[in-house]
């Protein structure tokens, strides 16, 4: 891949730190808009805390709906980061260098968004800490048989590991920024770079640590979403209680995560004029991965349906029939289309190298993946065992505002990141450029 880059070290430093220059008016406008949406979501949450969770559209039997949907969605989004940075790193996939920083940011901010929802969905958020294993006078512990307790551990572990990976991977780059910065910024970046000097000794330790962290993070990609899927799979509800859920959710998570990375890279490379660094080749590679994940997800859907039919379990059959023909059938067919069929367009090289097409297809995947979780969660609860207890979920203004606010929150964080930290890993890009010594000769 080296031949892709026609660059030198100095240009790289200049090009890849100019994104940190003072932002323009458009940036501020967008940021303000997102901030207002966050405020609206925050207000909605306040209303919900004050009045009760009934402000969201949930009921009996649908006790979980958009909040858990969006929670799973953001956890899923968070998966691409570690996949690209850790797994592709271990496989020495070179094109990852240009995109992994953003992917990791997606992971960290995705988790920071997802992490809000367990709080938002609680009936009594003011006692949320009871779910943590905090030693206490009464000797009350969380129930470790509950998948929700596993969830807490999985998410916090993943957040810790991915944050460390994110910060550690940035150290050499922050040092470059530090060297270029002045005033108080120099102090902040100085602190973040943790005394990085770029000495051989430091590099030796650093690269060794990086490999270790990458190896440590890799199983988390699999485990976190497996555990999230067990929130459903460990229950007795038809449509949830299924052994395929763990791989199925991981594949779905990566599917949506890749889509989100593409969606963020495209405007970023344009805005920061770093198309030489994040090239069409990189986007195309991501698009190819999306074809793969779309196929895996499509396979999982068909297996689910097959097993429901094959099992002769009347509840299982009923729920899948309900998904296809019932009150939420539109969502089911929409998700099948957007998640599986639309990405198939990427087989065409023309389409996968066309920016507008890529954006459209990735948006389609995001919509599809959100709907997938919505359909799994809501339809299963709406039509479980006792027909008398069947019910329907309808969103309200409050829960819609909170969900919209969460999207604003994610993009807000990402925008702040793009202006404060180097968005492309300079040191890894440089690894793929001819060293300056050679070119001087």
């Amino acid at each position, binding site marked *: 891949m080296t031949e892709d880059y026609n660059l030198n070290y100095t240009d790289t430093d200049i090009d890849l730190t100019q994104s940190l220059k003072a932002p323009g008016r458009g940036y501020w406008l967008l940021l303000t808009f997102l901030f207002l949406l966050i405020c609206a979501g925050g207000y909605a949450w306040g209303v919900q805390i004050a009045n009760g969770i009934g402000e969201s559209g949930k009921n009996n039997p649908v006790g979980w709906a958009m909040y858990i949907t969006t929670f799973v969605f953001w956890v899923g989004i968070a998966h691409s980061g570690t996949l690209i940075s850790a797994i592709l790193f271990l496989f020495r996939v070179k094109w990852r260098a240009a995109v992994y920083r953003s992917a990791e940011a997606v992971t960290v901010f995705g988790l920071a968004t997802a992490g809000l929802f367990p709080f938002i969905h609680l009936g009594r958020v003011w006692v949320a800490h009871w779910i943590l294993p905090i030693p206490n006078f009464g000797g009350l512990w*969380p129930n470790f048989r509950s998948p929700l307790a596993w969830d807490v551990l999985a998410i916090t572990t993943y957040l810790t590991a991915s944050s460390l990976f994110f910060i550690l991977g940035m150290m050499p780059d922050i040092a470059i920024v530090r060297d270029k910065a002045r005033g108080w910024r120099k102090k902040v970046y100085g602190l973040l770079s943790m005394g990085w000097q770029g000495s051989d000794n430091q590099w030796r330790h650093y690269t060794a640590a990086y490999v270790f962290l990458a190896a440590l993070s890799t199983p988390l990609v699999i485990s976190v979403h497996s555990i999230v899927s067990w929130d459903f799979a460990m229950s007795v509800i038809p449509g949830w209680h299924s052994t395929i859920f763990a791989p199925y959710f991981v594949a779905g998570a990566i599917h949506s995560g890749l889509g989100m990375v593409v969606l963020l890279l495209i405007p970023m490379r344009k805005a920061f004029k770093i198309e030489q660094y994040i090239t069409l080749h990189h986007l195309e590679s991501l698009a190819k991965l999306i074809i793969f994940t779309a196929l895996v997800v499509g396979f999982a859907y068909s297996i689910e349906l097959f097993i429901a039919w094959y099992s002769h379990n*009347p509840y299982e059959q009923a729920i899948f029939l309900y998904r296809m023909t019932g009150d939420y059938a539109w969502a089911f067919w929409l998700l099948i289309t957007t998640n599986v069929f639309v990405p198939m367009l990427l087989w065409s090289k023309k389409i996968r190298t066309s920016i507008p097409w890529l954006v459209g297809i990735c948006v389609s995947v995001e919509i599809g993946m959100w709907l997938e979780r919505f359909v799994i969660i809501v339809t299963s609860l709406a039509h479980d065992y*006792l027909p008398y207890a069947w019910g329907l979920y309808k969103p309200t203004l409050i829960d819609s505002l909170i969900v919209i606010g969460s999207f604003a929150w994610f993009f807000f964080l990402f925008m702040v990141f793009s202006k404060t930290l180097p968005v492309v890993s300079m040191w890894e890009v440089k690894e793929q450029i001819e060293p300056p010594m050679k070119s001087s000769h």
Partner: protein
Amino acid sequence: MELHRREFLKIIGATTVGTTLPGCGIKQPKSLIPYVIPEENITPGKSVWYASVCQECPAGCGISARVRDGRAVKVEGNALHPINDGALCARGHASLHGLYNPDRIQQPMRKKPDGSWEVLSWDQAQTYFAEEIQKIQKRGRGGDVVFMTQHLSGALDELVDQWLGSIGSKRRYRYEPFAHESIKKANLLTFATEQVPSYNFAEAETIISFGADFLETWLSPVAFTKGFTAHRGFKNGKRGSMFFVGPRLSMTATNADEWLAVSPGTEGIFALGLVKVILDNNASKGLGVVDATRISEIVKSYSLSAVEKATGVSSEAMKKAALAFAKAKSSLAVAGGTTIEGDAGAAITAAVNLLNYICGNIGKTVRFNHPGISNLNTYLDVAKLVDLMNGEKISAFIFADVNPLFSTPSGLDFDKAMMKVPFRVSMSSFMTETSAPANLILPTHTPLESWGDVEVESGIYGLMQPAMQPVFKTKMLGDILLETRKKLKSSAASSPATMYDYVRDRWRLLQKRIGDTSDFENFWIDSLARGGNWESPKSKVQEVRLSPGFNGSFFSNMKNIENEPGKNFSLLLYPSLNHYDGRGANRPWMQELPDPMTMNVWDTWIEIHPQDAAVAGIKTGDAVQVSSPYARFDLPAHVSTTVKPGVVAIPIGQGHTSFGRYADNVGKNPIDLLDPKPSEKTGGLEWVGITVEILKKSERLALVSVSGSDVQHDRAIVQTIPLSELVKPHATMPTEEHKEEAISMYADHEHPNHRWGMAIDVDKCTGCSACVTACYAENNIPVVGKEEVNSGREMAWIRIERYFDEKSPTPRADFAPMLCQQCDNAPCETVCPVYAAYHTEEGLNGQVYNRCIGTRYCANNCPYKVRRFNWFETKWIEPLNWQLNPDVTVRSKGVMEKCTFCVQRINDGKNTARNENRAVRDGEIIPACAQTCPAEAITFGDLKDPNSRVSKLIVEEDKRDYRVLEDLNTRPAVTYLKAIDLRERK
């Protein structure tokens, strides 16, 4: 305004005393006798029970009010009372919502000329009342004073008559909207006695009901349900059978083994057809030759084919019913309810009388022994009163707890007539439609605050005592009458000063009459503790013969209430299980209790058959305009097979305009659709007989049903077993099929002392929903209102799941009470991250409300969907919150709640046993649902004790027992017993 600290404290102090005094129960020691403890001995935190009589309908069931710290918190059936034997219906439970209703009239009021109300003191109000009456007397119009009450018996009934007599009037009206005119008329014609007989369902092996919803609203539903349970109880391979004849599948009808859906108005033809079949088959019993020939002559034209043509019921079904009826050892046919109360009502009832007569049931299962209900005024009397009022012949209209403005058709113009009466006095508890136009209101106590006695049946005297101090500044009706009588300075100066003394005086006489020679105080206290006296000799059963003048011409007006298909429909109005004639509509529990057949709440709807609905393009929830010649309004449609094609049905009870916040503007009052002219044949209101036009409108109305599905999709929630299979001996030895060991990482739960369990007999459950309201009362379950129910947030811990049988040739619904199954392997417990849901050592799925953080995972994972989440903070309206059971936590927003088999009652029972150094006795602990069940469908006990009733029942009924969703390996503690199907299915 500046408020200094000292003043503030003073105000706070004063208001605290002011608000707590009425509640903390400063009791008059002489007057309140607890049921269990012989002496007045109120201990804080300890309940006492006061026996009284329920006044929610004319049935007169005995009740026990549980009083905690001076407040009545629960009403239960009085286990010693012969009428209801400890059971109570949903409306009886909701009497507490009458007592604590925030919309009660709280003090006397007089209407000012500008129409607003002026609050008076009791002295002012009574003086004003007495002066006005005196003025009327001076004008010589004392005899034109009308006093209208609902059905009363005993002391109060007598006192009202006396009071009226003291001012020289005899214009007393005992008004009930359902006054059984047809029954009385028919009995007069056939047996020359104008009374409502008493019916014995328990002794009847075969029952045929012609329209009578005796399990819901007709005459004495709790007592009849008890009797029905005895009739139907499966014993020695046999079970009683019941047929229901009528155009609507009511709750009672669906409890029948066969619903014979005759065209409206043809019930009598069907009955005569049965008579003919029986006589033709020589199956009559104890019938003299003369009577036999006479009756044969009367029914000779009612051949099978003619009857089939008129009624629409196949001749085979008719023959089957006739022979089942005649061949039974004893049988009972009843006719009643609004569906037969048309112009032909008396003829229909007379036909049913003949049916009973030829099978020898008169004097056995139908007894003429003067129940109190017979003295009601007819609708004709009310219509005549309207004429008198219009002619300004009435000088004063005094009424107590009646609401004719609501329960007579608007075409009668009772309101306009009433305004022609110069002095209108309401002695009622509520500002009803009839109270609102009064010019003086003397608000009365509710029955739970009053003294009184009730003669339900001859020889059964119920005694009413106040369960607590009055909630508001109201008075007992009896006291008002006695005090105003004194003010009127009438002759009866020696009469007792208070209702309490008045009742006691009557009981002195009663004691003498029954020959009890003990000290009166002992007799009195004993009667109070027991809730009455039923030892007095019963009046003799009147022997009746077929009247000599009775002949077939009487049946000439029986005909099909014709409707033109697709154009108009015969209209059926039926009293609602929840609201009866409308008097229960302001009880929030009753509004939120799903109607058992439609599962709708908080509304009035029109039931229309799917065939008719398809023709008109009507779907459930569509607005349809209903128009009769007398009224027109929109109702939401409820498309259902509960009615025959060509028939539409509307429940009575809603559509109030002035009855308080829970009733006003809820639903419509269908009575207005009726012809206000009384029937010439019966003197009653023609509840059936008119046709209405139905017009589909484009908009939809929010009809709220709690049922997610009308059918059970083959999920075996309600299971039935044909009787033929049940009586077959076991083909093989019982296998170990349920013993299949599931592999688990975790050890089984140990239940060292008790394992509480329940058996629910689906065959017995009638769907009456008394358990649901009892649970609301016992467990402080909030009422959430129509919109929240529409969002799927009703809070009931126990519900009656109603499923229509998809495979049944005729429409039929089964009921399954669904509550927490207290699984041994509970899906809810493992998923709670904080152990709020946990397994108690007695096998309950406990819920620690304080620990719950509100993930709702437990509810998601509950296959039975019986957990309920507090979506909002409940607003407990003052003084309805006085009813809250202090033994049960009031849950806050954001926590999950659920049934725990009334764990507070279990603990109470265990504590009692421990204090007495003994083990808990079987039957000592009963959850609220099982306690109140009139059908005795719920048995509760310790599954670890092999001798407990529940354990034995499960062993005995080994062919009927099943657990719902057993395949999930939840190992529920609730065992259901299959419904028995008497019909042979192909």
